[in-house]
């Protein structure tokens, strides 16, 4: 039997299980409501403009949906290795010819699959709002959500790693959410240090933390709206950055495999 087969089978059935949960339906319906809200806002755009000025509708919808996706990703990953082991779901699968590393990769892959699926659906919804708002830039939009798929994969890895250590799923989601915010803060701090905006002992602590934490990729930005000197600050992902981000992601996956391997059923 191929070594990939158990990974794909575990992944496929975990995906099937997640896809039938009401929570996923909630995220899909919720995102549709947000999209409809964005479109409705476009209809009253001219009146709203008199009060608020021009509304960046697609940006607002994208912001809401990104937050939604974050919560959805944490929800599907928070119980990956604590709940499944505690409730005995893992026991029965691992009694089959399935290695723990295969089970771990299968579960991770399923969470990444959900994250990618949601990103594609959410990107399509933002695209609809963009078309209605006549501010379409499909290339940039899909590039941004493409980067989001990678970043949500990092978040899946963080939450899964935490779920191999922290026994309570909701605590995993909370710690994972704050870990994501802290990593984002450290990345912004690192960019500020590189731009010469920060120095002293604080910057040294920040740099040390930056080098030991996982990395997200920067979302591509619209060159037309961001000054040239700011582009690398917000939107530049050099090959080096990408390699480091992938290396940290791989390290987290390996650490999760190690922890799940040590877990007693």
């Amino acid at each position, binding site marked *: 039997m191929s070594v990939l087969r158990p990974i794909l089978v575990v992944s496929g059935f975990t995906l099937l299980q997640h896809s039938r949960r009401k929570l996923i339906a909630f995220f899909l319906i919720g995102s549709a409501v947000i999209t409809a809200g964005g479109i409705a806002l476009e209809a009253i755009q001219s009146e709203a403009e008199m009060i608020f000025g021009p509304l960046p509708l697609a940006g607002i919808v994208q912001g809401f949906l990104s937050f939604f996706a974050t919560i959805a990703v944490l929800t599907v990953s928070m119980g990956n290795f604590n709940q499944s082991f505690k409730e005995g779901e893992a026991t029965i699968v691992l009694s*089959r*010819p399935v290695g723990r590393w295969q089970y771990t990769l299968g579960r991770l892959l399923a969470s990444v699959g959900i994250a990618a699926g949601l990103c594609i659906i959410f990107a399509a919804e933002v695209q609809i709002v963009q078309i209605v708002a006549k501010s379409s830039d499909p290339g940039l939009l899909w590039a941004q959500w493409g980067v989001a798929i990678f970043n949500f994969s990092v978040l899946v890895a963080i939450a899964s790693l935490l779920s191999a250590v922290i026994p309570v799923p909701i605590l995993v989601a909370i710690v994972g959410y704050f870990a994501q915010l802290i990593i984002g803060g450290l990345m912004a701090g690192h960019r500020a240090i590189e731009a010469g905006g920060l120095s002293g002992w604080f910057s040294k602590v920040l740099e040390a933390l930056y080098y030991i934490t996982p990395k997200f990729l920067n979302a591509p930005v619209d060159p037309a709206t961001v000054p040239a000197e700011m582009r690398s600050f917000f939107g530049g992902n050099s090959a080096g950055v990408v390699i480091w981000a992938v290396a940290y992601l791989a390290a987290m996956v390996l650490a999760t495999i190690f922890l799940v391997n040590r877990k007693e059923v």
Partner: protein
Amino acid sequence: MGADGLSIQPVVIARGLSKIYGRRSNQIHALKGIDLDIRPGEIYGLLGPNGAGKTTFVKCLLGLLRPTTGVVEIFGKAPSDPASRLRVGFAPEIVNFPDYLSGLDVMKLHGLLIGMREQEAATQGRALIAEAELDRAPKRVKGYSKGMLRRLAVAQSLLGSPELIVMDEPTADLDPLGRRQIRDKLLELKDKGVSILLNSHLLSEVERVCDRVLIIHEGLVIASGSIEELVPKGSDLETVFVDLVQQAKARRAAG
């Protein structure tokens, strides 16, 4: 030795199997040097009071727990090798399947994990579901009663015609009819040459179906042998079991 003069390789071998839970300050010796062999085509009963270490033994056997010392082999392979479980079915004591899957999905999942094709897993899964009288069960496992879950657990352990089936309390949560069906199934499997490790508290069932038993108390073997060897005429396994456990407790209390 077999009838042809060749030695029969046991399906399961355990030698000096010990398992210690916890760290230095708070250690629990769950198993203390268990030895056993399960031969092809026999039903082997693993008995003991609650907390005796039966489930720990089963988990060590299936590679779910690492033994602290000692050796255990299934079909000549270490349980840490996933391939050792290719010909093994397992019905656990605590049944928990992914609750949004249907009974047939569970069968397909386990069929695919042992290398069956999807169509084959579905066909065999449907037949086993019908045999377990679950064809009218709720669509999702989430809606199953405890008895239905137990039946599904036993049904999935039979997928792919395994050569060894490990059953941990297979008749718990079942009504008398269900218990009889399981008993008949065990005897049918034995006739087909399947080896079964049966972990059960229902000693009357064990007495009826098992060829040999191993009785453990606080991780130690206190008796082993065939039912005929252990149970004197006019007595029953339950009486023998209670006597042995009480003697073991008395010995422990006496230091």
